[in-house]
């Protein structure tokens, strides 16, 4: 019966790839691609759905109301005004348009790199900048245009794009093969490949390193398909900063992907995101280091890609397709996890909850320690401590807040690398409390009681 069952499904199967329209590098509109690949397009459209999970999901609530400590931690910076839970890909462009970080603050068009289907715009800008229009110079034109657009004011660049991430950003229109299109990532991974940070989870990089290095590492040439299943995501789900006057979007991977390696880079180039309004410290802002955190985890180490969990195969009649409804795997445990983990859904959810709750508890501890440090510096300043006195406490504020934010801004609440997330928070706490100590020591007349401790009945 089953065999005949399969046979009847076979007919259905052959309908899938049917070239209705020609697709080119210029075809940004996903609906066009949808004509050739209706199943993937159907799921892609579903990224508009709104559903909450214990620690994630797609309900764009205001994180600053959810945990007001962040208003203190971000004080003096745009993130202290509007910082929301992120949601589905369908919203990426409109959410960027409407965030107060854009409406109330000056931003460069570099922002658009990860919020729109922007490659054709880069290409055009490259040609205008004088790069020859032939196929041989295509990539050069894109990279040139990238530089040009990064430097524009947001509003000006915004006119060049009109579509959130689309098929062409991850797929070659001729072969449908995965590919990396984002200049930011192409530059970043090149630099990373040259670093000495061991990357066992990216075998193609290790292979390139042990080769003659005649040319630079290029994911579109070197990476395996399984690596591509993560790299297409890592085009955007990474830590970044805008380099120099040209606001060139840059991924800080020169020394490696770990939190302290990125910090070393920022220290070298004397980078700060802003000066903290209360403490006066030159602080850093971490942004969605999913790729960096995932890289430290056991899943990456085991060759498990972003797509394995966030775009699992779904059986659609007689064919399997990758679920393009990119979302929290907790909304799709059966497909995202159970093919590899044979536990029932409730069990899997509770394992994730254990990891995430542990991370959150420690994270709140780190938030309280860092807020206590900020208050201690404020107290010292009020009591008359000099900038010179405050140099060390501020330096420690920079270190503790960078580590805290690295875990907080990462969107899996520690799941992507549970032990690493806890280690980072432990260091954050250490630096925050050390800073508090330094601040108290430079406080004329000794600091007032700034940190609270829950008492237990002392034993004698």
């Amino acid at each position, binding site marked *: 019966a*089953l065999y005949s069952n*399969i046979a009847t*499904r*076979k007919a259905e*199967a052959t309908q*899938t*790839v049917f070239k209705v329209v020609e697709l080119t590098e210029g075809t940004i509109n996903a609906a066009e691609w949808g004509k050739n690949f209706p199943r993937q397009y159907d799921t892609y459209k579903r990224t508009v759905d709104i559903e909450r999970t214990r620690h994630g999901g797609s309900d764009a609530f205001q994180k600053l109301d959810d945990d007001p400590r962040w208003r203190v931690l971000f004080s003096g910076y745009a993130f202290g005004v509007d910082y929301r839970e992120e949601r589905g890909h369908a919203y990426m462009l409109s959410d960027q348009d409407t965030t107060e970080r854009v409406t109330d603050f000056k931003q460069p068009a570099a922002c658009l790199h990860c919020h729109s289907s922007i490659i054709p715009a880069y290409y055009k800008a490259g040609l205008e900048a004088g790069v020859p229009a032939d196929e041989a110079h295509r990539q050069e034109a894109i990279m040139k245009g990238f530089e040009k657009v990064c430097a524009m004011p947001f509003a000006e660049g915004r006119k060049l794009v009109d579509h959130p991430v689309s098929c062409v950003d991850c797929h070659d229109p001729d*072969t*449908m*093969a*995965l590919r990396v299109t984002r200049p930011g990532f192409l530059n970043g991974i090149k630099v990373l490949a040259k670093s000495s940070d061991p990357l066992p989870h990216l075998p193609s990089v290790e292979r390139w390193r042990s080769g003659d290095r005649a040319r630079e590492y290029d994911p579109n040439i070197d990476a*395996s*398909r*399984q690596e591509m*299943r993560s790299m297409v995501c890592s085009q955007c789900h990474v830590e970044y900063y805008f380099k120099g006057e040209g606001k060139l979007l840059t991924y800080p991977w020169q020394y490696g992907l770990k939190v302290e390696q990125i910090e070393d880079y920022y220290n070298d180039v004397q980078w700060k995101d802003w000066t903290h309004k209360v403490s006066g410290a030159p602080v850093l802002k971490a942004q969605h280091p999913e790729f960096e955190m995932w890289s430290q985890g056991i899943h990456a180490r085991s*060759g498990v890609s972003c797509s*394995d969990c966030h775009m699992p*195969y779904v*059986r659609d009649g*007689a*064919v*399997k*397709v990758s679920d393009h409804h990119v979302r929290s795997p907790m909304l799709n445990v059966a497909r995202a996890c159970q*093919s*590899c983990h*044979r536990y029932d859904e409730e069990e899997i959810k509770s394992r994730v909850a254990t990891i995430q709750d542990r991370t959150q508890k420690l994270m709140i501890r780190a938030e309280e320690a860092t807020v206590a440090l900020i208050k201690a510096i404020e107290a010292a300043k009020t009591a008359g401590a000099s900038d010179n006195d405050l140099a060390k406490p501020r330096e420690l504020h920079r270190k503790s807040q960078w580590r805290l934010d690295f875990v907080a801004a990462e969107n899996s609440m520690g799941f992507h690398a549970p032990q690493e997330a806890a280690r980072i928070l432990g260091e954050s706490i250490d630096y925050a409390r050390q800073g508090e100590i330094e601040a108290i020591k430079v406080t004329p007349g000794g600091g007032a009681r700034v940190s609270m401790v829950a008492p237990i009945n002392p034993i004698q």
Partner: protein
Amino acid sequence: MATSRRNRVVAGVVLSVMVGVLSGAAAFTFAYAEGTSYLSNDPAACMNCHVMREHHDGWSKSPHHAFATCNDCHVPHDLVGKYTAKAVHGWRHSKAFTMQDFHEPIRITPGDLKLVEQNCVRCHSSLVGDLPGHGGIGGNDVNCVHCHAGIGHGAPR
């Protein structure tokens, strides 16, 4: 590298068969160790070696039990390939079983995994046929067992 190992073994088999015909000793070993079991399609044949018992037990509990025998997955399905592979397995396993010099837990060789996944696709092409590069074959591809670990005889755990 897996294939070169295979070639060497094939040569070994051919040679040993010739020697076997002459002396009979190798042939006797091969036969006594049920190397010949490989020529059968009956999973019980694999059971002639206790070291295969767990895989058999796992298989008999797996969903595939109803659809696929050991050989459906573990040998190619063109006639020549089938008997070459069986000879190769038969010789390698008999030798290993006799010498007791194999790595435990037993692990499939890259070459044989490739072969197995060709069989996955042979049966499931209707389902996976459209997946890019889903020959599921090594190298630049995503292997079936990356996600369907232990599909044949239950997950290792």
